[in-house]
């Protein structure tokens, strides 16, 4: 008795065999990939004359065009890719002023050496240069004289700033010692006479303030003016306030001397001399405001929350 055998078409068997084989090959390929030992590619990028090219950009791409790694040549033109799986890659090398070059490489487990020579870029397609941008010579030309002038200006203004800060100390102290340096009267009677020690201290502090102030002003006034500069911003307020505290400093001294003469001759301070104190206060306020103005905008960071 003949047994009935189910008929399987040959094409179905072929498809099945191919499927199993292709799957097996994929598994084998994946296993082979897992087993690859990383290799490396390194070398030097040079120009046509053999001179090293620094900062050339190198890109390592796989067969599918995907970027695997990037590198940049150093000052000696040297570069390197390490930890690269075995296989076929392209190394694209580019540098400003040179034509791009792509080299096909096969990476193995051993260290691969690849020196690349770049040809100068075709004159028909030059990289843009500063001359192409349309700046005037005046804008692009180096001016060492101006640099020297700026340097002198900065040094003088730095001294101006430091002396200005130092001047604040005797100025404020003069203001505070002013009260103890004058005669006090009540109902026509002298309740406190001229105290020589207080007066001397007030005078000495005033003189120190005047001398320091004058020197501070000298460094600002004599600092070179940079031609073609139109002042704007907080510096304008700083300078405008000098027209208040400058005459104020002179007036304070003159009025102080007048007040001293009047008190010394037993008179009550009168007339314009009585403005000595108020003028000194206004002068000090204007001076302080000018320091704040030149430092503007001030942001006290410790008041803010850290982000």
């Amino acid at each position, binding site marked *: 008795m003949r047994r009935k055998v189910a008929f399987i078409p040959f094409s179905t068997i072929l498809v099945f065999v191919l499927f199993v084989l292709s799957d097996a090959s994929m598994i084998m390929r994946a296993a082979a990939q897992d087993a690859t030992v990383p290799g490396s590619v390194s070398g030097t990028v040079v120009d046509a004359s053999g001179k090293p090219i620094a*900062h050339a*950009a190198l*890109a390592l791409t796989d067969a599918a065009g995907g970027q695997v790694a*990037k590198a*940049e040549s150093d000052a000696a033109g040297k570069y390197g890719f390490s930890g690269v799986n075995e296989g076929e890659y392209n190394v*694209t090398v*580019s*540098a*400003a002023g040179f*034509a*791009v070059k792509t080299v096909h490489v096969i990476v193995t487990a051993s260290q691969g050496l690849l020196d690349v020579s770049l040809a100068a870029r075709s004159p028909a*397609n*030059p*990289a*843009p*240069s*500063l001359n*192409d*941008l*349309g*700046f005037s010579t005046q*804008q*692009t*030309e*180096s*001016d*060492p004289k*101006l*640099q020297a*002038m*700026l*340097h002198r*200006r*900065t040094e003088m*203004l730095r001294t101006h700033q430091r002396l200005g800060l130092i001047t604040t100390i005797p100025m404020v102290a003069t203001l505070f010692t002013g009260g103890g340096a004058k005669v006090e009267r009540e109902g026509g009677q002298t309740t406190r006479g001229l105290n020589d020690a207080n007066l001397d201290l007030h005078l000495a502090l005033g003189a120190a303030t005047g001398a320091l102030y004058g020197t501070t002003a000298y460094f600002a006034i004599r600092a070179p003016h*940079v031609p073609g*500069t*139109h*002042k*704007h*911003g*907080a*510096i304008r307020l*700083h300078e405008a306030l000098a027209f208040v505290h400058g005459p104020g400093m002179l007036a304070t001294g003159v009025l102080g001397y007048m007040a001293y003469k009047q008190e010394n001759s037993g008179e009550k301070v009168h007339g314009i001399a009585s403005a000595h104190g108020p003028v000194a206060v206004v002068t000090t306020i204007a001076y302080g405001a000018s320091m704040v103005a*030149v*430092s*503007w*905008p*001030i*942001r*006290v*960071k*410790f008041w803010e929350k850290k982000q």
Partner: protein
Amino acid sequence: MRIALLLILSVAALPAFAQSDSQWQLEQSTLSYHMSHPMHELDGVSHAAKGKGTCHEGQCDFLIAAPVKSFDSGDTNRDLHMLETTRGARFPMVVVRTHFPASELSQGTVNADLEVQFAGQTAHYQNVTFQRTGQGKDVRITGTVPATCSDFKIDRPTFLMVPIKNEIPVKVEMRWREQ
């Protein structure tokens, strides 16, 4: 069948289109450096940059330059001091050169290696990311160059004896037009 073939050809031609030769002109720009001090936070802004770019054989070269003295922090005195500190009279231009694959021009982000000449020094910044927006011939590029004073051997200016931070990041906003 013919339509399908055309579609396949169009898709295949896309990378080639992206890498075609092109010329670019900087139409508008805002470059601003940020200076940080415990008592100051300042930005110096310049709108005077000019730039040009060329793409050839899949690679682009771009050049952007601005006069150092064009940066305005809102105060003449400070700007003149910055000009002195950065040796801006001897080296009056800040020049940025970049080189990148043309394919990046059609992507949302452009990763570029920059060569910056400033204050008589040259610094290189790798893989600086810029955002690219815009369509057609107009492209807007924004990003920040992580510059520092020490990159250019600039003595950090001081205020009340305290120096500014070493980091002076330069924010870049540019509108480029393909010629």
